[in-house]
């Protein structure tokens, strides 16, 4: 089963001078249902743009975007919490937009927030939270909508290593439980080697898919420093042939 198929997707943006900037240049990729699919590529190569196309927030200049998902949700690159809502209000916001608020919503949100270590903060407003806490609310908001396709745009980039690892493990656990498809954008090879089934390597603009590497390591993947080093080595071996310079 395929969750997502992009075929020859081209995306141009109008520039200030009236010229057009080609960001995506014939991108094709296929993501299997239930797969943990990751994308790495240089900054500004169009990863966020690609996710926008999948979400339907933008329309490609040409090419086709086929999404096989009942419900999709995005964990944004910046947390994008509504400042006038509390943590709980923000966590519920995705469900509210999708018309999914029912009597069960609040207890479910509270349970997930507790699991993410936010139970002390459910009634606080975002300006009092640390970046890591905001990012967890961002993640909770998307997960609570019970997506079968979850798009994540460098969700853990702003976190310290310990928190990042905690959230990565939380994410993996939920992914195992629920079996949704993940598309995970990252700048860290070590991170995607720990998390993903596949790593799509993108070139610089105009962007193409250089290749897709299968990680092929058994799960759960070890979390000791040595194992991490081995993971990183593995990911670099996998992706070396796609990079002129490293990511």
């Amino acid at each position, binding site marked *: 089963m395929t969750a997502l198929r992009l075929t020859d997707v081209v995306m141009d943006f109008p520039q200030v001078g009236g010229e057009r900037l080609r960001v995506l240049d014939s991108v094709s990729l296929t993501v299997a249902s239930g797969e943990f699919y990751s994308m790495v590529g240089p900054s500004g190569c169009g990863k966020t743009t690609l996710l926008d196309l999948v979400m339907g927030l933008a329309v490609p200049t040409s090419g086709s975007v086929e999404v096989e998902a009942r419900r999709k949700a995005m964990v944004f690159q910046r947390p994008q919490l509504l400042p006038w809502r509390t943590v709980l209000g923000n966590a519920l*916001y995705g469900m509210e937009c*999708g018309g999914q608020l029912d009597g069960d919503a609040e207890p479910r949100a509270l349970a997930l927030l507790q699991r993410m270590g936010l139970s002390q903060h459910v009634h606080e407003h975002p300006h009092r939270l640390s970046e890591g806490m905001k990012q967890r609310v961002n993640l909770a908001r998307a997960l609570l909508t019970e997506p079968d396709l979850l798009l994540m745009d460098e969700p853990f980039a702003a976190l310290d290593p310990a928190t990042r690892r905690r959230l990565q493990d939380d994410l993996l656990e939920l992914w195992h439980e629920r079996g949704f498809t993940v598309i995970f954008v990252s700048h860290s090879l070590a991170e995607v080697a720990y998390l993903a089934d596949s790593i799509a390597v993108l070139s610089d603009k105009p962007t193409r898919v250089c290749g897709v590497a299968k990680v092929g390591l058994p799960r759960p993947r070890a979390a000791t420093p040595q194992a991490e080093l081995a993971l990183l080595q593995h990911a670099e071996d996998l992706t070396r042939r796609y990079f002129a310079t490293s990511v």
Partner: protein
Amino acid sequence: MRPGAERWLSVVSVGTFVVVWELVCRAAWVSPVLLSPPSQVAVVGATLVAQPRLWSDLLYTATAFGAALAIAVVGGAALGVLIGYSRAAYFAVNPFIVVINALPKVVLMPLVVLWVGIGTTANVLLGAVMASFPILTATYAGIRSLERDYVRLARSFGATPRVIFRTIVVPGVVPYLISGLRVGLNYAMVGVLISEFFGSSLGLGYRMMLLMANFEVASFFVYLVVVAIFTLGASALLHILERRVQRWRPDPFAATRGM
């Protein structure tokens, strides 16, 4: 100076002002026809407060003010939202807004009288017209400065335009609306009072005109104080509303503290 001691400066300066005012009048430096001493204003005030006329004037003006402000909020906010949402509406309506805004609104008074005649309708209408412009422009500015990212966020979760309006537009615009209301409040009062000056048979503005014509300066000052208290009261209510709506905001003085 001790922290907090600056507050007393307000009391001291107002107190000094009143004392000097009293002394100036007692020393007969100005004719009592032009200025009444505060002591006399207080005495006259006490008698006026005991009579029903002051209260019926106040009630009349307050009602017109409330009606004018309500019309201005509904009309101004609705038009502001409309031109904020639609570029076509903006370009169609904006020339009128610019021109009317450039006019001192007082010049509309003769026109208002011509159309609806002297009376309560004219009072409310002038107040409403004057108050709607700051509310309209503030609402428009609020819509223009909405975070695009929040709208994207809502859309990504499948929000309908209705839900976006309720959850993103309204909370984003309300602070602007309130600051528009702060200006609109004064404009509404000015509009109502001016219209009452022109012609009316009741109301604070009408009475002030009458008192002046009869050289009842002390009574005039009493009415002046009543107008000031009323407007301050309305402002204070608005402030409370603002605090309620903005509870989520971080300390508003934090950014400039210690500058």
